[in-house]
């Protein structure tokens, strides 16, 4: 309970404080401090849940169960490492003159607020609040994306805002329908939107309404997950914002959206006897994987490329949850974890690489391994990991997903094979010359932050060869909640 209060309180307080002090040099460290506090609180919360099971809080408005607590911890952790990364990164940005003090203030405050909204979205028990939090997350990230105030960043932010705004609006419509269905059972008292109630009564929800509701919720949250063809905001937003923001966007926000989608899926599966939700997820997931793979082979901008790779992986995750069943759900959750770890690590490395080369155009970044071996290796290993090379964790989940798909949906495997092959060819073919070979780039004014990169990669590596038992228990419980 208190832990929860801290989890939500720290970032909120942080954003308020940094809203005034964010332009000072100390702010970077304050940012880290608050993120660290959040992380600690999240850990205690996790311990609590793992030891004594799920619980409700604040008159049932908040609900902590294995499914969301593991995302909470993940969010807090990546938030922490990203803040660590953003210390030197933003410092260098200031030196390069891309960030004014005012913008620094905005950046730091919004960074914490963004974390807050995500944590609320994860922990709330109220589908309405979930929606509110998602919208709020959108708003904060819009500000973060546009922080450079360049033409490109404005365009990206605008598109991001409009597309996600519309998407989220549709989700609201879905929520209204959900409420409408629930109202018949619970009456118009507040309880009707509480997920726990809905979950307990999902068998009795009216299928017609739920079907329609899920359609809207799917489109709505699917937009934020970045499922093709609702993905168009994603590459722009990732490419034009500051790199730490890109890291949290694809590392965390996509996960949160996916989480919202999963909550809806559980209700829908309960209410309908058809496997509508699963089918939709599978179809859109597969399309996303294939289309994103082909987009990958056209990229010139490094951050854009990895944004598309995020779309691809989200598609894979959606496909996994669509498959359903204990193994596939487990694989999906695992993939969410390793993807956010690996992808954010990649963005850290990419951030320093782009700062070194002074450009995001891949053809102009060369021979990182010569200038700073650590960044080079970070990028190399990260890319290999994200491409599903063992012993990194992404491989573990892809292994489970593909092998399960091979027998449950054989027709899908050729597409997956094609997509993964194309993705590998495109990404690796571009990363290789960036990392190896001759170079002309120069050193940085400040030392890059390497702890985040390699801690993430190490974790990803560990999840590939060894998953700690409590983590396993955690995953399996979560998978069970997803109707595995």
């Amino acid at each position, binding site marked *: 309970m208190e832990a929860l209060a801290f989890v939500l309180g720290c970032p909120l307080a942080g954003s308020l404080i940094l809203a005034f002090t964010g332009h000072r040099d100390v702010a970077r460290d304050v940012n880290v401090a608050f993120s660290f506090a959040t992380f600690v609180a999240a850990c205690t919360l996790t311990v609590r849940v793992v030891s004594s099971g799920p619980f409700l809080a604040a008159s049932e408005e908040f609900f902590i169960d294995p499914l969301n607590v593991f995302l909470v911890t993940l969010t807090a952790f990546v938030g922490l490492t990203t803040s660590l990364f953003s210390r030197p990164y933003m410092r260098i940005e200031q030196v390069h003159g891309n960030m004014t003090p005012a913008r620094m203030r905005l950046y730091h405050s919004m960074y914490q607020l963004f974390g807050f909204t995500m944590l609320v979205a994860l922990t709330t028990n109220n589908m309405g609040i979930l929606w*509110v939090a998602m*919208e709020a997350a959108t708003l904060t990230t819009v500000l973060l994306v546009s922080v450079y*105030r360049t033409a490109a960043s404005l365009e990206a932010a605008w598109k991001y805002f409009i597309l996600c705004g519309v998407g989220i609006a549709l989700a609201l*419509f879905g929520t209204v329908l959900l*409420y409408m269905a629930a109202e018949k059972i619970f009456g118009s008292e507040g309880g009707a939107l509480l997920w726990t109630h809905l979950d307990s009564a999902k068998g009795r929800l009216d299928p017609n309404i739920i079907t329609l509701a899920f359609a809207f919720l799917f489109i709505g949250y699917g937009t934020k997950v970045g499922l093709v063809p609702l993905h168009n905001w994603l590459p722009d937003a990732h490419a034009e914002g500051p790199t730490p923001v890109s890291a949290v966007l694809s590392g965390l926000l996509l996960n949160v959206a996916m989480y919202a989608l999963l909550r809806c899926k559980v209700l829908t599966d309960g209410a309908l006897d058809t496997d509508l939700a699963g089918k939709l997820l599978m179809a859109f997931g597969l399309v996303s994987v294939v289309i994103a793979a082909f987009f990958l082979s056209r990229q010139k901008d490094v951050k854009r490329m990895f944004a598309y790779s995020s779309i691809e992986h989200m598609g894979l995750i959606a496909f996994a949850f669509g498959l359903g069943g204990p193994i596939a759900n487990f694989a999906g959750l695992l993939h969410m974890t390793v993807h956010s770890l690996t992808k954010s690590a990649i963005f850290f490395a990419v951030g320093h690489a782009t700062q070194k080369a002074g450009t995001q155009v891949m053809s102009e970044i060369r021979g990182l391994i010569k200038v700073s071996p650590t960044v080079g290796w970070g990028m190399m290993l990260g890319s290999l990991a994200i491409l599903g090379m063992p012993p990194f964790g992404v491989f573990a989940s892809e292994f489970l997903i593909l092998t399960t798909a091979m027998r449950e949906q054989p027709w899908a495997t050729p597409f997956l094979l094609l997509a993964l092959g194309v993705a590998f060819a495109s990404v690796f073919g571009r990363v290789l010359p960036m990392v190896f070979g001759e170079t002309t780039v120069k050193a940085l004014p400040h030392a890059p932050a390497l702890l985040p990169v390699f801690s993430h990669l190490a974790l990803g590596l560990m999840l590939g060869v060894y998953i700690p038992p409590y983590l396993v228990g955690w995953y399996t419980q979560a998978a069970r909640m997803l109707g595995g």
Partner: protein
Amino acid sequence: MSQLAGQLINLFAAVILMLAFAMLSQRRILSLIHLFTLQGLTLAAATAVVGYVTAQPHLYLSAGLTFVLKVLLIPMLLHRMIERLDVRWDVEALINVPTTMLIGIVLVIFAFNLAEPISRLSSSIAGGTLGIALACVLLSFTMMIIRSKAVPQVIGFLSMENALFFAATSATTGMPMVVELGIALDVLVGILILGVFMFQIREQFDSLDIRHLEKLKDN
């Protein structure tokens, strides 16, 4: 009494739908804002009536909220914005209004057809309005698609929010208060941010024509 109220709500629904159509075909930004204000007003009224019928005090609150937000605050903001950006007398050329109308009608039929089974077994006094709300959502969506200037696009976005509110209040008897507050807050912040953006876009591209925002692409 109650079925009079029901008819009243249906009337409001019709008005809102009509206003949506009007917006879809309206060329001038200023009148767009007026239409939007009207829509907000109707929405507030409808909410109040629903509150009166179902005797739910918190609906009055949300009616008031709607009034303040969508009749006073946002229109005012919009007015000041177009004042500053001096696009008050802007007229944008729409492609072929009749076609858009036809599309709109098709959408309305589609929406009704979609909502029909639900409305039938809807408990609340005016469940039939769900179809209208859905239609409004789709219409505003279309509007956003065909508008090529920033402000009208935003207004389309807002009218979509209106439709959602309408669905929330009339189809169901109002969302929980906390949710409504949250939504309202989001909308407000959103419109503020959009406002800021418009100025920045303006100074970047010295125009609000979003056709300038087509640099980032992959083809």
